């Protein structure tokens, strides 16, 4: 060994020493300083997955509330909000579950909150209960009339516009403004209390519109008329003409 070193020029020896030191440093860093998860992909994924899995839960889940709040749960289970989780309105409640005495979940009292779901929005699916917050008892809290755990209307609505404000306003600007809703729609009394299970009827015969819009009709003076025998034979009129809007087409 000594012989080899003596034969080598001094600068080469220095470089060799430098490289050996570098190799030792790399070895020490890799073996003892770097965490194992940085060297092994499987281990890295496992630690990252474990770290993700260990995060705190904020929402306690739908099952747990009924354990203590049995009464509210039973009321809710029988009403229209039966599929709504408690935490949809009351907010994340895991902290309340962990410490029921000190942490209380929120309880939205203002009109704004119900509006997230029930304000009128033309993108919402047909039949979803919506109101116009400007015309529907403005300045009154929703919970003053509706029990949020069982939200049926407290009294039967006086006019169709209470729920169908959008149609009412469109109709007010159309040629049909003087015709009341019940002239065309049959409205069973139960529709007022169970609006989605008992739905009002629409004219199911062409002759209904023909009473005014057939050219033979006695009432048709000054109205747009068609020959009912040749015009759109197999369709009911409202399948093409929307009777609530201006112009009606």
């Amino acid at each position, binding site marked *: *060994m000594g012989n080899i070193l003596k034969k080598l020029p001094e600068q080469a020896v220095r470089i060799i020493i430098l490289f050996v030191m570098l190799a030792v440093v790399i070895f020490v860093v890799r073996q003892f300083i770097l965490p194992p998860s*940085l060297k092994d992909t499987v281990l890295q994924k496992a630690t990252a997955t*474990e770290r993700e899995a260990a995060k705190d839960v*904020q*929402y306690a889940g739908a099952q747990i509330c009924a354990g203590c709040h049995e009464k509210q749960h039973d009321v809710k289970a029988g009403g229209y909000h039966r599929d709504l989780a408690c935490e*949809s309105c009351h907010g994340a409640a895991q902290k309340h579950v962990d410490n029921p005495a000190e942490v209380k979940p929120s309880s939205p009292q203002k009109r704004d909150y119900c509006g997230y*779901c029930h304000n009128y929005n033309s*993108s*919402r699916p047909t039949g979803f209960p919506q109101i116009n917050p400007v015309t529907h008892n403005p300045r009154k809290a929703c919970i003053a009339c509706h029990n949020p755990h069982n939200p049926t209307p407290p009294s039967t609505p006086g006019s169709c516009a209470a729920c169908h404000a959008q149609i009412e306003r469109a109709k007010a600007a159309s040629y049909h403004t003087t015709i009341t809703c019940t002239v065309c729609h049959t409205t069973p009394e139960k529709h007022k209390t169970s609006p989605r299970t008992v739905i009002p009827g629409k004219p199911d015969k062409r002759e209904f519109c023909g009473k005014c819009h057939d050219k033979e009709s006695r009432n048709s003076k000054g109205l747009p008329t068609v020959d009912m025998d040749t015009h759109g034979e197999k369709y009911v009129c409202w399948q093409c003409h929307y009777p609530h809007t201006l112009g009606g087409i």
Partner: protein
Amino acid sequence: MDRRDFLKNLSLVISSGALAGGLSSSAWAMIINKDYDTSKHLYGMGVNIDKCIGCGRCMQACKTENNVPNVPFYYRTWVERYVIKTDKNVSVNTINMGIDEPSDVFVEKDVLRSFFVPKLCNQCDHPPCVQVCPVGATFKTEDGVILVDTKRCIGCRYCIQACPYGARYLHPQTRVADKCNFCYHRLVKGLLPACVEVCPTQARLFGDMKSFASPLGRFVRMNKVHVLKPSLNTDPKVYYANLDGEVN
């Protein structure tokens, strides 16, 4: 020390190093959760467009559950409002979930169709984001969820660019990529993702594709389902029912 001894010692050092490395990689088995077997699950989500009322509760719940900054712009999940006018013009906006103002009353003229589309990370089976990560910080778990290793991520945003669904964002506090992971910390505890938990109309469904009776299994049997951007062959695990052709 002659050359033979030197080589002998060298080989010893190398083999002991390899042994140490081997030991450390086998030790990770202890770390994995005992009650939860990743190989027994494959998660997916179902979204029924016809049921979504655009209330934004999912967006709010997601922010609360996953510590996402409570301002618009940063979303792990969001809901888009599509308005298709009679002249076929389409406008798409992310809905206001009520952070700065309550939900508005929307009345537009000349609307042909209008609906809401909830969006989130599609947890692709062939994820482009995983392919492009230069440090291997994002990866697919055995149960089908794409996770981000927040300690490994260097915040280069390449994955944010690569995601065809725009599902990723750079978390302003941690400065690493963040995205929906189906609330992985809830799944391992047997809970539903927070957005599914609070959805008032069950527009979002969640389930295990390895289970026939899971809500998702039923959802994909009972509906005509579609995924977003199928032409990219990303093979998403978020299934949409009643999706409009304008949505991409």
